[in-house]
């Protein structure tokens, strides 16, 4: 089976490689076999690091690969912070417990995100918090060089060690420690070097799913018997022996294909074949013969136009839509940590159905910003207050030195007290400010209470969900149309609703996620939807009815037609 897959997958590499071959400066093995890397390590000046004897040389990734590869190009692309922004993907989250801030940000221009400048984040804090989950590159948000090994080294790569070294400000050394070439004290593992100062590295263009899953896991925040932890690794394609890179391909410039419908790839090459639709429902010749062409018998065809494939095939199983999840990048998965709780910020919800950039219904992740904003005044726009600016005022008025929420929760038995403290704090701010939480901005109101006002900054951010693709038998619709079209099904979940970070007198008790009534939204013609929900249980009856009437009228009209032909014979 694996062999068959490899055979059929081998059509695909031609999609992106080949553009590389024009440049003769770089070595090529000319063989389809993986080249065995038996190479020297080098420091930043390009000096070979010797395997024995005294040395304080620190290895450098660029210099190590540069003799044989165009590292400049390899350090760009999607993971290097370059390439087109395209439709929104998962953002970074600033989680600052001292001020209760959980704000989504990115250097890419996606809706609803703050910029690094707005949050006043410096390189060091970015490196410490986001660094472990940044693959690095020329435009890296945390200012690190590309870690080629995390994606290309097959087998054991110690992600935890890498994180530790990055946090300690030793990004250069991190990948070499993770690969076991240096030990946790930062010294050479001499046994790895041969007497010509060379090491063997098991490098592959496709080092297998584990390499990518360091940063791309998604799992339910709350584990239970009904909610076993699923991840991208639970994807049917991986179960069938495919690897992430079979679909998320790239050339040397590392513009990794995202797989979106209608994706425009910087290389100008069509990458349509690497999207769900392009691979499974190709127009013309199939690109991958082993990809089953779905029949979707009985499904009115507009469903395939009005919805993405992922709407039925991906994400949490039915009834789990709107589930709260953890992601590697937002919740530091893979880094051992004590006291993880299901409610750990930021709250991210999966399986929320929204229209995508192609105007199709698609499952999304959804997350809500929390933190403090300066409300819009006469001549100023509303903007986020960077947590750094809140330190002093919070310490002065509320005496917060650690975790803001713990502090106000621990001070008192009276739940209204938390609200009063924050309200008092807002009163002390120099310019009019508000607390953003649960989808609203909360302003100070008389009586030291907080009252909700609407603000653009308080809205959710969302990005499309692609994985895991469930087996066909677990798709929505596999139990019939009533998986979606029935009054009792929870589908569709259109909005998640996070609880406010502290109890608010003005906020009724809002549950974590809610199945919002479609009537309150303008993206959905709810009366039509409700009508169909109501009509659907009679669908089997309708089938019988139309089959019966169809058969009867066909017989009768055929009889009359034959009779007419006979009767009119001259």
């Amino acid at each position, binding site marked *: 089976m694996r062999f068959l897959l490899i055979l059929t997958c081998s059509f695909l590499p031609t999609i992106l490689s080949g553009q590389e071959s024009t440049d003769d400066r770089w070595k090529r093995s000319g063989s389809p076999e993986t080249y065995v890397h038996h190479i020297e390590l080098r420091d930043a000046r390009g000096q070979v690091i010797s395997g024995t004897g005294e040395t304080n040389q620190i290895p450098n990734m660029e210099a190590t690969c540069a003799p044989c590869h165009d590292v400049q190009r390899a350090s760009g692309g999607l993971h290097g912070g370059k390439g087109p922004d395209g439709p929104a993907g998962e953002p970074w989250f600033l989680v600052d417990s001292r001020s209760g801030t959980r704000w989504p940000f990115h250097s890419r221009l996606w809706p609803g995100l703050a910029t690094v400048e707005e949050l006043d984040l410096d390189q060091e804090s970015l490196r410490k918090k986001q660094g472990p989950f940044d693959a690095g590159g020329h435009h890296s948000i945390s200012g690190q060089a590309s870690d080629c090994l995390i994606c290309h080294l097959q087998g054991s790569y110690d992600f935890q060690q890498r994180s530790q070294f990055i946090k300690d400000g030793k990004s250069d050394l991190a990948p070499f420690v993770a690969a076991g070439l240096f030990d946790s004290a930062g010294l050479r593992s001499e046994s790895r070097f041969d007497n010509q100062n060379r090491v063997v590295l098991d490098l592959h263009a496709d080092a297998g799913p584990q390499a990518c899953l360091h940063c791309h896991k998604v799992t339910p925040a709350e584990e239970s018997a009904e909610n076993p932890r699923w991840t991208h690794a639970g994807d049917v394609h991986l179960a069938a022996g495919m690897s992430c890179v079979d679909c998320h391909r790239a050339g040397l410039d590392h513009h990794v294909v995202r797989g979106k419908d209608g994706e425009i790839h910087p290389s100008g090459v069509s990458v349509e074949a690497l999207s769900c639709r392009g691979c499974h429902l190709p127009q013309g010749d199939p690109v991958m013969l082993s990809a089953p062409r779905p029949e979707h018998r009985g499904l009115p065809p507009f469903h395939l136009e009005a919805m993405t494939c992922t709407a039925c095939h991906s994400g949490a199983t039915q009834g789990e839509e709107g589930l709260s999840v953890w992601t590697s990048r937002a919740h530091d998965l893979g880094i051992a940590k004590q006291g993880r709780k299901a409610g750990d910020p930021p709250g991210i919800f999966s399986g929320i159905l929204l229209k995508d950039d192609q105007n199709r219904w698609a499952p999304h992740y959804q997350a809500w910003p929390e933190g403090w904003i300066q409300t819009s005044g006469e001549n100023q726009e509303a903007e986020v207050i960077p947590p750094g600016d809140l330190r002093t005022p919070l310490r002065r008025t509320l005496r917060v030195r650690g975790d803001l929420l713990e502090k106000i929760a621990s001070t008192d038995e009276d739940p209204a007290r938390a609200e009063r403290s924050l309200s008092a704090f807002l009163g002390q701010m120099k310019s009019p400010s508000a607390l953003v939480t649960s989808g609203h901005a909360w302003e100070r109101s008389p009586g030291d209470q907080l009252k909700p006002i609407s603000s653009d900054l308080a809205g959710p951010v969302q990005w499309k969900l692609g994985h895991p693709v469930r087996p066909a038998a677990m798709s929505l619709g596999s139990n019939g149309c009533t998986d979606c079209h029935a009054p009792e099904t929870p589908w569709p979940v259109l909005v998640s609703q996070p609880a406010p970070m502290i109890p608010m007198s003005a906020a009724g008790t809002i549950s974590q996620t809610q199945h919002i009534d479609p009537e309150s939204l303008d993206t959905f013609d709810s009366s039509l939807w409700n009508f169909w929900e109501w009509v659907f249980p009679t669908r089997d009856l309708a089938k019988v009815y139309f089959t019966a*009437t169809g058969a009867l009228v066909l017989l009768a009209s055929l009889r009359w037609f034959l009779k007419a*032909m006979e009767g009119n014979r001259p």
Partner: protein
Amino acid sequence: MNRWQRFLIPLLILTMLSSIPGIPLGVDLRGYPLVLHLAVGSLFAAVLVLFLFQPPTKLGRLSSLSWLLISSGLVALVVPMLGWVSAETGHLWLETHGWLSIGGLGLLGLSASLEKKATADRD
């Protein structure tokens, strides 16, 4: 005249009108027009059964052919509905359903006008 014919023709025309948004090639009939089309169409199907089992004294060649087309159109609808074909092929069957019915209606109009002419000529 068959007593059902009085209902039949208006229902047929209403069904036809409600399907107009779905006529362009590759476009599916959706939304309220679809609801109307299904409602009127169901009624029409019933009346058609009654009509054909108690037809007028005599159906001409042309009009009997048009009823045959319209009936086949109804059968073409049943094919994707019962899930006998894939969703993509379903498009084609729905279009066939549409064109057969429209063809039938057109022919019916033609036969009616010819019949009228014939009766006018006879007078």
